[in-house]
């Protein structure tokens, strides 16, 4: 039985079905089958977080999830973070704080930060740093990223007031 696996998911709010080999990771399915190339392959072993997506409400490394496991799941990728041309506050804050250089880690960091700010309105700096510990950035030194997340948290609170 070398067949493909039929997976039915919701990705960024839309019902999506695809066929994958059982050995293909969710990251490979997103990028190579569905053309959603925003999620990046960095280390491909769960250390760097560049492939972070939200799977049923939790951030995960999509390189450590099989596509087949995603059957029935609700997935948010970086492509689902902006509303059309309206950037998410986290995305705006990353631009304004210059929280990126090469950009490879950025999709994963933005997805992870969005998930944090949706769960906790006012995370401390320590909380932000621990939450994002699974997202490696070799350019910025992290301070600008943490500042961007703090700015986004502030803006999201203003909006909700």
């Amino acid at each position, binding site marked *: 039985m070398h067949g493909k696996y039929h997976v039915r998911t919701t990705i960024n709010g839309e019902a999506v079905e695809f066929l994958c080999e059982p050995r293909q990771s969710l990251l490979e399915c997103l990028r190579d089958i569905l053309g959603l190339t925003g999620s990046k392959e960095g280390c491909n072993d769960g250390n760097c977080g560049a492939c972070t997506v939200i799977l049923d409400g939790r*951030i995960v*490394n999509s390189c450590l999830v*099989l596509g087949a496991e995603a059957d029935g799941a609700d997935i948010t990728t970086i492509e689902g973070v902006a509303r059309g041309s309206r950037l998410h506050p986290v995305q705006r804050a990353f631009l304004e704080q210059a929280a990126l250089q090469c950009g490879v880690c950025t999709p994963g960091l933005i997805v992870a930060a969005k998930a944090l700010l949706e769960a906790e309105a006012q995370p401390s700096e320590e909380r932000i740093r*621990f939450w994002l510990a*699974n997202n490696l950035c070799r350019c910025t030194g992290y301070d600008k990223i943490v500042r961007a997340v703090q700015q986004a948290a502030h803006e999201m609170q203003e909006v909700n007031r």
Partner: protein
Amino acid sequence: MKWFDYAAPRSVAEAVRLLAAHPAARTLAGGTDLLVQLRSGRKETDLVVDIKRIPELNELRYDPAAGLTLGAAVPCYRIYQHAGLRLAYPALAETASLIGGTQIQGRASVGGNLCNASPSADTVPLLIALSATCHIAGPQGTRAIPVEDFCVAPGRNILTPGELLVSLHVPPPAPHSGARYLRFIPRNEMDIAVAGAGVSVTLDHGHFRSARIALAAVAPTPLLVREAGDALAGRPVSAESMGAAAELAKAAARPITDMRGTAEYRRHLCAVLTRRALEAAVAQAKGN
């Protein structure tokens, strides 16, 4: 990754049938160890059996009389987000939050941490200290064994082909008891223990009624140091008694020298971590 097939059984019986029919099959819980090992070629398989759709494997139930039932596939975040568990077993909730980062904790399970049988597994010394038992299903029926007997060598556990770790059971915390796992890592997070110590204590009017001490990353398997805990039974709670137990833990350690630390450094850490973990567990016990 090399080709393999995938199955997601809905019952323990179905999983056991699949595992028994495919001796090279691998069980998949959070996948944070297995998928890395399959990708790197360290492990090979023809069938990955995803156990996350089996109700018993997702069970997380605490009852003050019966204790804790922890399904083998329950991810770490469910453990530290469970209010009742956090109150009854704060050390377990804290240890579940030490493993990897947020993304890993969204997937990785304590059952998987145990089955992976790494000498440095962070949750295992604490499970041993808490007298947890493994509930195993197999073609011949079910069996229960103490966690300290589960790991047999680096990366190898006691499960035979067809067997599945279904759940872990932790007895209810005794009155005036406390527990703690401490590890040493050179960073603040996202690292593998150079050494670790998990302890539990039960106090009785300024004395230890009983204690259990187990170590991580200083032997081929997580190591229960029975004599270190037994030495505390009946002794007054004091720096001397805890220091003596810490020295017994150090003496039992059989570490190797590798990239994370020398054997000598690891032995030193065993004494320091055991003493500090005992102090923390005593402080918690006094509050209970």
